[in-house]
């Protein structure tokens, strides 16, 4: 009654119907005999079933979307619904915002001695906040004016539904926690802690850690199945000033500064504060994250490729105490005008602020 040590490879063969008859009957006999083996096999088969469902559901979903589009465009639906109305969900903290005051923080940050960016021609696009004394000065000024304005260092972008944002290490350096803010119909400000830093790729990840936060739902863009191509149209959104700023151009090279293959070189005029803003192609594929520019050539920016961001998410999720990422995409950008695309993406681009 000795049982063979069945492996995952055997499970796979059995599931796919590739086992020889003789081996198959031995396997089935063991399955009937051992509850432990059965449980292991069932867990494995469950994964394969879900994997195969992934593909069959995709085509069915497409079919249903066509039906839905036809239905929605016909008058039938409007009649059924009567008056149209929308419920706007406020995920935000109701932080009262006073009128936006334009403060451009002075000072550009030149890289020190960090990784492969060890060069003065590479400018990290971080808004530098000058020393403590000037910050106190700033607070004092702000208090006397009664304004609510917070110094910010760059941008960040939502990469997981449960509140993981990607930014650059040079945006959050020396900070343990930050505020991330954006302004739609209301001001949204969350506390976030830093869960991952990689000086070599310049990728940092933030996790929103705030009782007012409720999740972003399915991410309305696509994780690209391919890399960006040279000469391809791209655009970015970021906070190079208090308001969000749109920039567009193309991929001028599939490698970055000093042939760094982890980044793209892009012909987008980028400015301090743009660091951490997302880079998109025309169809809503998230290609990368703006990380710096060449100071000696105008219109030469760099963006770290999104593949490395997903790599970072895996690494971060392997740490203790870090909530698992939720990567569910539903591209709502395909075939939309640029204006509409920006409207969809804007809620996912956050300013990185220094908390008080």
């Amino acid at each position, binding site marked *: 009654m000795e049982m063979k040590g069945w492996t995952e490879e055997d499970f796979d063969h059995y599931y796919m119907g590739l086992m020889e008859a003789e081996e198959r009957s031995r396997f089935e006999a063991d399955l009937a005999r051992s509850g432990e083996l059965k449980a292991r096999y069932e867990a494995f088969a469950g994964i394969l079933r879900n*994997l195969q*469902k*992934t593909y069959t559901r995709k085509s069915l979903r497409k079919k*249903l979307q066509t039906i*839905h589009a036809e239905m929605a465009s016909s008058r039938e639906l409007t009649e059924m619904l009567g008056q149209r109305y929308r419920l706007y969900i406020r995920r935000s903290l109701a932080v009262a915002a006073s009128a936006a005051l334009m403060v451009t923080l002075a000072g550009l940050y030149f890289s020190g001695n960090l990784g492969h960016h060890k060069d003065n021609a590479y400018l990290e696009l971080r808004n530098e906040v000058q020393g403590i004394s000037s910050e106190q000065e700033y607070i004092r000024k702000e208090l006397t004016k009664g304004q609510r304005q917070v110094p910010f260092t760059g941008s960040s972008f939502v990469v997981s539904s449960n509140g993981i944002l990607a930014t650059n290490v040079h945006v959050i350096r020396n900070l343990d926690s930050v505020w991330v803010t954006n302004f739609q119909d209301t001001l949204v400000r969350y506390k976030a802690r830093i869960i991952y830093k990689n000086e070599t790729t310049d990728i940092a990840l933030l996790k929103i850690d705030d009782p007012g936060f409720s999740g972003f739902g399915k991410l309305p863009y696509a994780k690209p199945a391919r890399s960006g191509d040279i000469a391809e149209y791209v655009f970015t959104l970021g906070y190079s000033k208090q308001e969000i700023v749109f920039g567009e151009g193309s991929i001028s090279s599939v490698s970055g500064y000093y042939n760094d293959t982890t980044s793209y070189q892009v012909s987008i005029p980028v400015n301090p504060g743009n660091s951490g803003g997302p880079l998109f192609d025309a169809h809503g594929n998230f290609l990368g994250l703006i990380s710096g520019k060449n100071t000696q050539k105008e219109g030469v920016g760099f963006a770290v490729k999104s593949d490395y961001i*997903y790599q970072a998410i895996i690494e971060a999720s392997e740490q203790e105490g870090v909530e*698992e990422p939720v*990567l569910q995409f539903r591209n709502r950008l395909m075939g939309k005008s640029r204006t509409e695309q920006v409207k969809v993406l804007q809620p996912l681009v956050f300013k990185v602020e220094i908390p008080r």
Partner: protein
Amino acid sequence: MKEQWEPKEEKQILEKVRSGDNIAVGKLYRAHYPSVLHFVKTNMGDEDDAAEIYQQAFIILYEKLQEGSFTLSASAGTFLYAVARNLWLANLKERRRFSFEPSGMDPVDEEGEEMQVIVAREREFENLQSSLELIGEPCKTILKAYYHEKLSMEEIAAQLGYTNADNAKNQKYKCLMRLKRIFEKLGE
């Protein structure tokens, strides 16, 4: 103008849906969307959310119809509404927005256990989607080629530029193990 079908008529439509008849799929789809739309919209969702959740419920019904053993305990409309409702509530709970009583409490909670199983399975399915995104390329392509397109290892090797079938096979096995590892981690 919501369509009301006699049980016999509905049975015929479901039989056609089961066999993949597109006209019947459209008919069934259109018939039961309005009630789901209403429920989602009165419970903190918008039209996009409603379409998304309704399609998910519809797919579940479709898959169940494919399993020969499945019999509906109620009408298709009741089933679709119950599934969509439970999925949406689970969704809200997950987003921690669920601090209110859902409106439109219909007497659909009797089949609570069946719904719990469905919601749990969907959760598992979604975890698999996340895991699949995380393993990245070339794994995604290899797994699809093998488990969906049913290509042979020789074909996969040729397509993806592996020197031989054995290399492709090793790579596929690694990918599958990686998927399994991440999936199990997400499910913890």
